[in-house]
């Protein structure tokens, strides 16, 4: 029990830092609220799905950024999708970079696009790491905020 409490506190603190540091926003809470006994790992499942899908998009964008000249329409399209998924999971910083990227696209700014995309990939990597740690802690304890029931 004591251990559980400590774990719970750690998880809570990890979670809080995600919000405080702006990695995730209120949409993440929406996902958490969807999690229930029927789907106890819902958030993690969704985030994993996001990783898979976004890996594909990132790859496509990387490739497209190698083209000469840049196809801004295509890039914008990819980024629109990426933005949609990242906002669905509440990936705040990533979403901000997506928006910036799309603005550069619309402005036809090659360097802006490339630079922003690098930044985006960094943010994405950091988020992914933090969430992985978080889920590692959160998983065994069940829902992080509410210990609806805790296995002894």
């Amino acid at each position, binding site marked *: 029990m004591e251990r559980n409490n400590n774990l719970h506190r750690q998880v809570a603190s990890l979670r809080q830092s995600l919000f405080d540091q702006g990695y995730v926003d209120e*949409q993440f809470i*929406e*996902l958490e*609220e*969807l999690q*229930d006994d029927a*789907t106890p790992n*819902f958030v993690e*499942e*969704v985030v994993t*799905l*996001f990783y*898979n*899908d976004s890996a594909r998009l990132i790859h496509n964008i990387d490739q497209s950024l190698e083209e000469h000249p840049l196809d*801004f*329409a295509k890039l*914008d*399209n990819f980024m*629109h*999708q990426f*933005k*949609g*998924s990242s*906002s*669905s*999971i*509440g990936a705040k910083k990533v979403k901000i970079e997506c928006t910036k990227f799309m603005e550069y696209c*619309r402005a036809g700014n090659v360097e802006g696009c490339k630079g922003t995309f690098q930044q985006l990939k960094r943010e994405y990597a950091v988020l992914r790491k933090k969430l992985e740690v978080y889920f590692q802690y959160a998983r065994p304890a069940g829902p992080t905020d509410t210990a609806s029931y805790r296995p002894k």
Partner: protein
Amino acid sequence: MNIGSGSVLSSTGSWKSGDVVSDQFPVGLRVLVVDDDPTCLKILEKMLRNCHYEVTKCNRAEVALSYLRENKNGFDIVISDVHMPDMDGFKLLEHIGLEMDLPVIMMSADDSKDVVMKGVTHGAYDYLIKPVRIEALKNIWQHVVRKKKHESRDNNFDQSGSVEEGDRQQKQSEDVDYSSSANEGNWKNSKKRKEEDEEGEERDDTSSLKKPRVVWSVELHQQFVQAVHQLGIDKAVPKKILELMNVPGLTRENVASHLQKYRLYLRRLSGVSQHQNGLNNSFMGRPDATFGTMSSLNGLDLQAIAAAGQIPAQSLATLQAAALGRSATKSAICMPLVDQRNLFSFENSQVRFPEGQQQLTNSNKQIDLLHGIPTTMEPKQLANLHHPSQSFVGMNMQVNSMAQHNNSVIMRMSQSQPQMLSGANNGSQASRLPLSMQQSLSSEGIPGAVLAQSRIVDNARASVYNPVSQASSMVDFSVNQSKELQNYNFSLGSNSSGMSNLTNRGMLQEEANSDIKGSRGFPSNYDIFNDLHQPKSQNWGLQNVGSSFDSSHHPSIQGTQGVSSQLLLQQGISSTHNNGQNRNGPIGKSMYTNGEESGHTNLIGGPRLNSVSRNMLAVKAERFPDADYQSTNFPEQFGQDELMSAFLKQQGSVGPVETEFGFDGYTLDNLPV
């Protein structure tokens, strides 16, 4: 929320194929969610499940459509993303509206006004911005209820209405519980979400004629298309089509109204392509180059136009340019889809026609169609239209003759047009059209109006949008419609509003093309119809279906017009009705699969149609009978394009062009919560 809805549901029959338990509503609401993003799809599914809805998810629009077609009445509402790789969300929206008559909610991470407006013009019941919150999803049931509510109103009329075709009536009643009611209500609802619309519709319902509604199943529609092609798009008159189709129980009116919708659809298609050409798709943020693909249709129209040859190309070109310039490229987006799916969309468009008609009806309702239903449109807008339209009128006049089938369409379009035009072209043009139309009508016999209308239709058909196509559209009209249009115009002429409608049509096209226009069109549409209808009631007496006014105005008009208008009305009504019923028909590749009706033309009179729709029908009827005017419609081209765009926009179909007639103006209710 269960309480109210429950009662509504019960009264209208099961909205869930008889399974519904009113007090459980909205629990168990059957939702189909379509999104190519797996993350979003999973989240939405979970959210909807948490709302106790029954969820079916799919990540491809084509798959979604096949689900819907295979399970007619299997879903209550559809939620779809806007940006999908295999089909544009708006196109899907259009298809669903046309075939299944289900409420569709659009979603996107894009919250720019253009896109949202596009959703509105295409008839989306709501537009959600991603990331979607569960609170937004909890309330989607309201759209289903609202729709059914409207439909039931219509149904009530139908059921209690005409007994001319007892069997059909019965069928209609039976279908009413879901599809038919959906049709009527849907059409109205989707077209005009505004409160006024709803109110108007309700009023209209009471006064609408009760006619059995024909359900345009896929097979039936295919037969129809075959017949039309056999005859040649220009010569496809309802009477001949009817003969060719040889479907027992199908009336000329049914065919006429369906034809009208079909033409509108074609117009939309062509209009979209045109717009795309010249427009930047602000909405999409990327150039859409697909607009030009109306190829198959274009050829048709071009020839027609060439034949018509008299439309002042320049005027058309000007108009087009203006229209194109104005219309957002949204249509462009739609176009590709349209073109790509030519067959499919064609079918769809056909399917949609009934819906379009419905829409028209809906919009008409507001306008207070002949039946004297109070129109919600604002007369002042019409006034605007009237004034500036001088220049256009001339043009429109010519065109008008062609547009018989577009009468209703044009009307709508013109309605929206005026606004659009004013905004789009020179502002004055739009308004001028109506005015000029009126004036010229008397002298020229309406060609302008007709043209405008026909153009719209033609556009839909074959990328008529371009100046060339415009001509073709006009030609099309002329075939059947010129006559009617003329008649129509005349009658319109009598009502200044009428004129405006016509001109509006042209404008509409333009508007249709550009989403922006759509917004403009809204008011105009409303106005136009109002004006149009209002006076109409006096002049036309829709009930009489055009006979009254046509004959009075155009000696040349054959007596059939009156008849045809009536037929049209009925058809329009029935088509709308049918739409609802057929919607679910498994269309597969062909537009209407037998589905439920399979070959059984649900000739259920469309009593439910509002007087407005009836008006529309009447108008159409007039046109159909003998469009000989064709040639004169050239000026129409210009107007037509605009009208087309406006129309399309309004229609809210795929692109601005594709919008079902009258869609634009009426989907305001669907604005995102």
